[in-house]
């Protein structure tokens, strides 16, 4: 088991499903002149669990928004290979901020995507309650967002993204606001689900440990301008469990990933560490 360094090619070595989406030379320049992404090439295969890892401000959220179609690239193209059959409303998205309806209670917030698909409260209730239980929020159905703690809000947001069982799940630091124990639990839950249904996950995280534990491919990005610094496969078999988490292999992988991340941060144009 080792980190397989891959060239910055659109094809990842470890992909095994058919191609779902390819980003080709994608760039994003905001109207204020900030280049958030430049020349990003990335292929996502069906069933991938892909992590985006990188320093703050390197364009991870921007990339996720591009993939979700919430933003359009200023250069390059997104190639949805199976676009004929792919429906954008089959994407689940966990925003970096909770993004809840402030006037609706927890139940209604999680119900929302189902409601938009036409499911009545009664029809949706079992799924909603199940998701709420998964994120340990049973009993808080009637609380409104301002009555929740930061982590609880984020969990509502996670429940909402997953309640539709989407084909593609885009998650922007979903577990960042959770304690490590709960986080591990949710990591395990997510992996279990993923193995069962093999949807595609693009997962933004700041945690090297989390990215290595969860994903079959890790994309490390660098900032100024945001770009893919290195991409590698994590060739550990699934299911991954607590044993894997404590294995020396995992530790080694993490250390290597860490080194890549350090490389990415240092490769950032001087300005990043100006102050020092």
């Amino acid at each position, binding site marked *: 088991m080792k980190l397989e360094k891959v060239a910055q090619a659109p094809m990842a070595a470890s992909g095994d499903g058919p191609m779902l989406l390819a980003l080709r030379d994608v760039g994003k320049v905001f109207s204020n002149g900030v280049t958030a992404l430049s020349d990003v090439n990335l292929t996502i295969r069906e069933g991938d669990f892909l992590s985006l890892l990188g320093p703050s401000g390197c364009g991870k959220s921007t990339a996720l*928004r591009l993939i*979700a*179609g*919430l933003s359009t690239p200023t250069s390059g193209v997104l190639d949805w290979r199976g676009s004929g059959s792919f*429906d*954008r*409303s089959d*994407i689940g*998205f966990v*925003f970096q*901020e909770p*993004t809840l*309806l*402030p*006037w*609706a209670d927890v139940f209604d917030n999680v119900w*929302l*995507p189902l*409601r*938009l*698909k036409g499911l009545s409260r009664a029809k949706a209730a079992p799924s909603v309650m199940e998701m709420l239980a998964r994120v340990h929020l049973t009993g808080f159905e009637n609380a*409104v*967002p*301002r009555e929740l703690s930061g982590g609880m809000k984020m969990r509502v947001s996670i429940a909402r993204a997953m309640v*539709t069982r989407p084909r593609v799940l885009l998650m922007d630091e979903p577990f960042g606001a959770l304690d490590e124990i709960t986080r591990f639990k949710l990591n395990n839950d997510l992996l279990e689900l993923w193995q069962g249904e093999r949807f595609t996950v693009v997962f933004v995280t700041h945690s090297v440990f989390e990215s290595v534990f969860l994903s079959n491919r890790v994309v490390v990005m660098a900032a100024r301008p945001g770009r893919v610094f290195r991409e590698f496969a994590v060739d550990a078999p699934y299911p991954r469990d607590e044993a894997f988490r404590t294995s020396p292999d995992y530790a080694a992988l993490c250390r290597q990933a860490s080194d890549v991340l350090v490389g990415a941060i240092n490769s950032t144009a001087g300005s990043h560490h100006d102050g020092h």
Partner: protein
Amino acid sequence: MTAIEGHTPTLDPEEARRLRQERLERIGRWLLPLAIMILAIWLWDRVCVWNDIPKYILPRPGVVLQTLHDDAGLLFSSLLVTLRITFLSLALAVVGGVGLAVLFAQSKWVEMSFFPFAIVLQVTPIVAIFPLINIYVDNQTTKLLLCAWIVAFFPILSNTTLGLNSVDRNLRDLFKLNGATQWQQLRYLRLPAAMPYFLGGLKIAGGLSLIGAVVAEFVAGATGQSSGLASRIIEAGYRLNAPRLFAALILISLIGILIFLVLSLISHLILRRWHESALKQER
């Protein structure tokens, strides 16, 4: 626990101050406005006396009160007529204002194309176009309603439009991602988000529909028995019956305040679970 007791004094001042203030505020909240109101009325009385203002110009509050009592039957039956127009036109203003705002929210095109007409309606002096209304509208109530509506609908339209356009970007993205239809976006996102703005507009429109009802009656004239407060005011003015004129004005003011309080309450009840403007200060 004695140790604690020993320390409490060090934080008492701050805490005690807060508690005292809270209690004061609870009482003051109702007492002070009342006191100020009474003070204002007393001042009015004093001004009349000190300046020897004759009662046909500005009657003393006591006289007005007396008139309010003596002419109660007449004034209240007129009040009912005015109130009827007020509430009907407020209802229409809500329907019209929100309806138009929703329409405008559908697309920038529609908004830019039809907002000018709304402005034209807002700025057209009713006195000037009333002859036209008078010619083409037969029903007296319809005439009055139309006039009052023209006066009242714009704040609701304008504020609701603003509210519909102030929806958090991320929430909008969320709805887009979930393939929400225009209608769903409106129903579940934009209308609730616009609520505080709409309710703000409603508070403005409440008073305006009252004044609109009065102005409409001024312009449209009264037909015999069904004359509202405006007719009373004109008549009282003409007859130099200042006490009755001011009694009518006081009635209008009281109703205005009442409408505002009711709308504020409604607004509070709708928003209290989530919007800053209505949240109780929980510390």
